[in-house]
């Protein structure tokens, strides 16, 4: 799929996500808008996954460690055929498979249950290690939030991934510079990530996390260093694509009112067509 097609798909996913947040009256719309381009490029261009065989041992693994943006993953999985598109309308409803954080027991295509931050990367290290033990070619990708990198468990996993020489592991940091309550720079400012990850022995790519060609290139096997795990620092905007949400800390999990919803939808329509 070329960048133009990916842009259309990502726009459609953004609109469906926004609609579901509006209808459910809840969600984490800011972080969903920042991660959707990354998820779109992975699921439509890179990952070897098959909705007809979601547990195929040879599949690539994707872990959404920033599990609060589950809705973005659900919409992407629906677009890829892992669940019916119209099931998105059940998001957060009583007994829905689509609760606020992804659950592998409920939903094929989800690899591990996330929600508490700092869990996805250690699990992804285990996945990548399993593939190495068996000399298999499937790859593991994990998406974390930049604020989530404040969790110490991630740095435990970063050490281990380098020690285990997991060049089949790609960590993507959704670097939107905002966490729930404030900017990273006002909290625990981990940026810049590159020197820190490099110091731990990782190969690092710094990209525009909304540029589909840059994302696709960075997550592909075209980049990397043999024997080193790869980190893609995806520079993104929280609330990307919606002017009044973009880079605005207020929109971590705020829900738009009717007029905001219409404006946001109109802006997404404009950029996606």
């Amino acid at each position: 799929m070329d960048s133009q097609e990916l842009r259309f798909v990502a726009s459609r996913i953004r609109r469906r996500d926004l609609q579901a947040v509006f209808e459910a009256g809840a969600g984490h719309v800011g972080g969903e808008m920042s991660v959707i381009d990354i998820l779109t490029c992975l699921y439509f261009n890179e990952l070897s996954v098959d909705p007809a065989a979601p547990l195929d041992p040879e599949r690539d693994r994707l872990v959404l460690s920033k599990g609060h943006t589950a809705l973005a993953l659900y919409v992407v999985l629906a677009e890829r055929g892992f669940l019916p598109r119209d099931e998105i309308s059940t998001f957060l409803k009583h007994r829905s498979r689509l609760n606020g954080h992804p659950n592998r027991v409920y939903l094929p295509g989800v690899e591990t249950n996330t929600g508490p931050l700092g869990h996805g990367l250690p699990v992804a290290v285990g996945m990548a290690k399993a593939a190495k033990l068996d000399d298999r070619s499937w790859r593991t990708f994990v998406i974390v939030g930049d604020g989530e990198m404040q969790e110490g468990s991630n740095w435990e996993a970063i050490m281990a991934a380098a020690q285990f020489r997991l060049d089949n592991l790609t960590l993507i940091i959704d670097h939107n510079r905002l966490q729930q309550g404030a900017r990273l720079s006002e909290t625990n400012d981990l940026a810049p990530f590159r020197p820190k990850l490099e110091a731990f022995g990782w190969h690092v790519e710094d990209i525009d996390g909304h540029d589909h060609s840059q994302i696709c290139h960075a997550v592909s096997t075209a980049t990397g260093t043999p024997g080193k795990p790869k980190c893609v620092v995806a520079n993104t905007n929280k609330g990307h694509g919606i002017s009044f949400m973009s880079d605005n800390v207020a929109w971590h999990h705020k829900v738009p009112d009717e007029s905001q919803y219409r404006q946001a939808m109109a802006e997404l329509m404009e950029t996606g067509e």
Partner: protein
Amino acid sequence: MNAPFETARLHDCRDAFVGMLEELAAANRDIVAVCNDSVGSSKLTGFRDRFPDRLINVGIAEQNMVGVGAGLANGGKVPFVCAAAPFLTGRALEQIKADVAYSQTNVKLVGISSGMAYGELGATHHSIEDFAWIRALPNVPVIAPADRLETAAAVAWAAVHDGGCFLRLSRVGVPDLFTEGHVFELGKANLLRDGGDVTLIANGVLTHRTLIAAARLAARGVSARVLNMASVRPIDADAIRAAASETGAILTCEEHTIFGGLGSAVAEVVVDSCPVPMTRLGVPGVFAHTGSANQLLDDFGMSPEAIADSAVALLGRKV
């Protein structure tokens, strides 16, 4: 120390654990061991020498250790995640909850040197809350074997069980209570001694002491039943109900705080369906003082004599 331990007959259950693990790993290349720098204290040096690629040492990083275990399971491996019980269950409790229990992954959690095995090192190194923590979680059976034979049997069971579990092992020497070839059954108590006046329920290193207590009680004219309850969750409710109706009183004995452990689990069954007087022996809700595991058990009223005395006192409360 009051218990008549004969050192020559006592076994460290870690040896049985690694012996069985190596045997199983030789036959199943998917079995791996994950540890937190605890190769020696988990007695995994033999495993490492035989299967160097399959000993995954994440360093001193317990949260990552459990997460890595869950990822290995996702990739088709059968990980035995081994660490000192207080750090495995305490430091990594949220990983056990989210990555193992909630995600329903095939991770075998092995808590080494549980209870007060690290007696003199102090309460940071005691694991007397782990029954409560782990049995509160769905999908992770909680198992505390009583001797080397039950340990080996539980490890063999865990390797073929489709799902996670928590094996709570000690390093405190215990004699053989079972016979060679013992088969572990999840959720089944073992009747080690029959009796009609009172039932003593224990697991782990306390089963041995409880059996001695039952012999002392016999000398005092009291017929005590002894149930080994390695499986704390699921628990053998039928055996508990039978004990309540047939003996009319139940005493539990555990190397754990009395809040939320074996005694609590037994009491939940008793209060729900067969109310009888109970006594719960264990650590009485305090951080233990300095002492060896055996000294501390004695201090907390779990010498065989004290157990017998508590049972006699309990008889006085029978209706």
